[in-house]
């Protein structure tokens, strides 16, 4: 039994260890501050700044959109709808299910819609796909948070004559640390997704300037450049993997800190 536990946790350190081991030698200021020179697949010079920036744009924009759409939905499901009603139960179930739908399916449908509308692969396409992918994460996390709010806090606020919307604002204040957790979780999923962006965002050597142009992202920088026969290009993949790992680790640590804050808050 101990062995099973050790092998499971061990695999985590193995993954991070190998990425560190391969990536660290390639990390330099040039690597993270320049775009690739001479084509991402064959050019030996330059770095991965285009992918870092593209990923931040993509994940940032879709997280903002998903939060703006997801929080009102979670509030509606917990405040406006009668609890225990069919619409409430089935909507929550459906968001649970949507959470499990793989990004390749979202990507495929977004891709065919884009083809149908004549839009080419672009940052915009990626943002739409990833937003759809992250809405269920936001809804589910906020929903779980709202369930932890004591019923009496809702009741006393309403007893002051507050409308449902005003009560919702008080509850949002109450679960604030948790909301940041939800946003971070969504951001983490958004920045790490490959299959969705592969079909919809394309790839580019340039820094992302316009939303209707293809943009590079870290996961795709890894995916495309890893299979290159040129060591320098492979190096860019390793460096991208390291940067992505660091971003994810920072996010996980932040969510951990926030989660303990939310616990303290609960009197």
């Amino acid at each position: 039994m101990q062995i099973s536990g050790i092998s499971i946790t061990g695999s985590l350190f193995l993954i991070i260890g190998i990425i560190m081991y391969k990536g660290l030698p390639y990390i330099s200021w040039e690597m993270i501050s320049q775009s690739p020179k001479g084509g991402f697949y064959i050019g030996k010079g330059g770095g991965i700044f285009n992918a870092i920036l593209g990923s931040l744009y993509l994940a940032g924009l879709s997280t903002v959109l998903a939060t703006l759409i997801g929080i009102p939905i979670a509030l509606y499901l917990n405040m406006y709808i009668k609890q225990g009603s069919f619409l409430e139960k089935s909507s929550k179930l459906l968001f649970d299910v949507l959470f499990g739908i793989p990004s390749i399916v979202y990507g495929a449908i977004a891709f065919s819609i884009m083809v149908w509308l004549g839009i080419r692969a672009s940052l915009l396409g990626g943002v739409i796909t990833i937003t759809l992918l992250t809405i269920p994460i936001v809804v589910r996390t906020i929903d779980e948070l709202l369930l932890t709010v004591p019923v009496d806090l809702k009741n006393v606020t309403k007893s002051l004559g507050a409308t449902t919307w005003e009560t919702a604002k008080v509850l949002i204040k109450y679960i604030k640390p948790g909301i940041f957790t939800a946003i971070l979780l969504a951001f983490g999923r958004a920045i790490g997704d490959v299959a969705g962006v592969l079909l919809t965002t394309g790839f580019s050597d340039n820094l992302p300037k316009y939303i209707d142009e293809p943009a590079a992202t870290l996961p795709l920088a890894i995916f495309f450049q890893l299979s290159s026969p040129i060591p320098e290009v492979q190096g860019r993949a390793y460096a991208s993997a390291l940067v992505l790992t660091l971003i994810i680790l920072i996010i996980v640590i932040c969510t951990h800190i926030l989660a303990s804050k939310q616990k303290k808050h609960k009197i």
Partner: protein
Amino acid sequence: MKFRLVKDLIAKYLSKSLLILSLSVVVLIVIGLAMKSSPLLDNVNLFHILTEKNWSPQKGNFGFLPFIMGTLWVTLISLVIAVPLCILASTYLVEYASDRLRISVLPLMNVLAAIPPVLYGVWGVLFVVPLISDWIAPIFNINITGYSVLAGGIVLAVMIFPIMISIMVEVLHTIPKELKAASLSLGATKWETIQKVILRKARPGIIAAVVLAVSRAFGETVAVLMVCGNIPKVPQSLFDAGYPIPALIANNFGEMMSIPLYDAALMFAALLLFVIIFGFNLISRIILNRLEEHA
């Protein structure tokens, strides 16, 4: 102060329309995929598509069997590895481990869950594939590159660890202490209690966790694609290359517009994935919700 009430109404209907809009995406996905894949189904019957081995889009042969088998192989391998490990590990965490150990291990599962698929793929290429070609295959006197369904299965197994562990731990926590106490006071050993009482009681929850993990494995695209070899043939052994359904979509969407019916075939693949995963998720979520209500 009527304005406050109007604001409340606006908030209500705005959030309601957001809900309906986002839920209608599901309907949109189903209709869109069904419409796009209908040309294929008009030409060839469904049964034929699912059982035909031959995949050559240029000649108009769209046999899905290699991809279905590829998906099944990697999923089964990952389950064979992950299910026993996860059951043992989560029982250990809940029944034997100290609080300190439990509190320090569970966050690590969150890290494992947060790692993006592409990084699992990198790990697969750098570690699992060489491990198979240099260490495991020679034991059986086979000479291969290592890109195989086995590699895909191992990578997937690690990817489904966190979801299985976290759900199993939760399920094991819902089992009443009294039940354990009753069994122990009858003179059963701790291990007997775990085997005969706890795991039996936890069975529906464990099944739900496995089903959820299976649907995760079915849909995983890039990590598997990077280590599986991607040859459209039905795999015959652990060391054969395989070509799972998601990888098929990801690898070929670029050229699908140039060959007739190719796009319909890929959309059919996406529809297939969606329907299977939707069904699996629905079943396991319903089981888990039931368990939560009874707890």
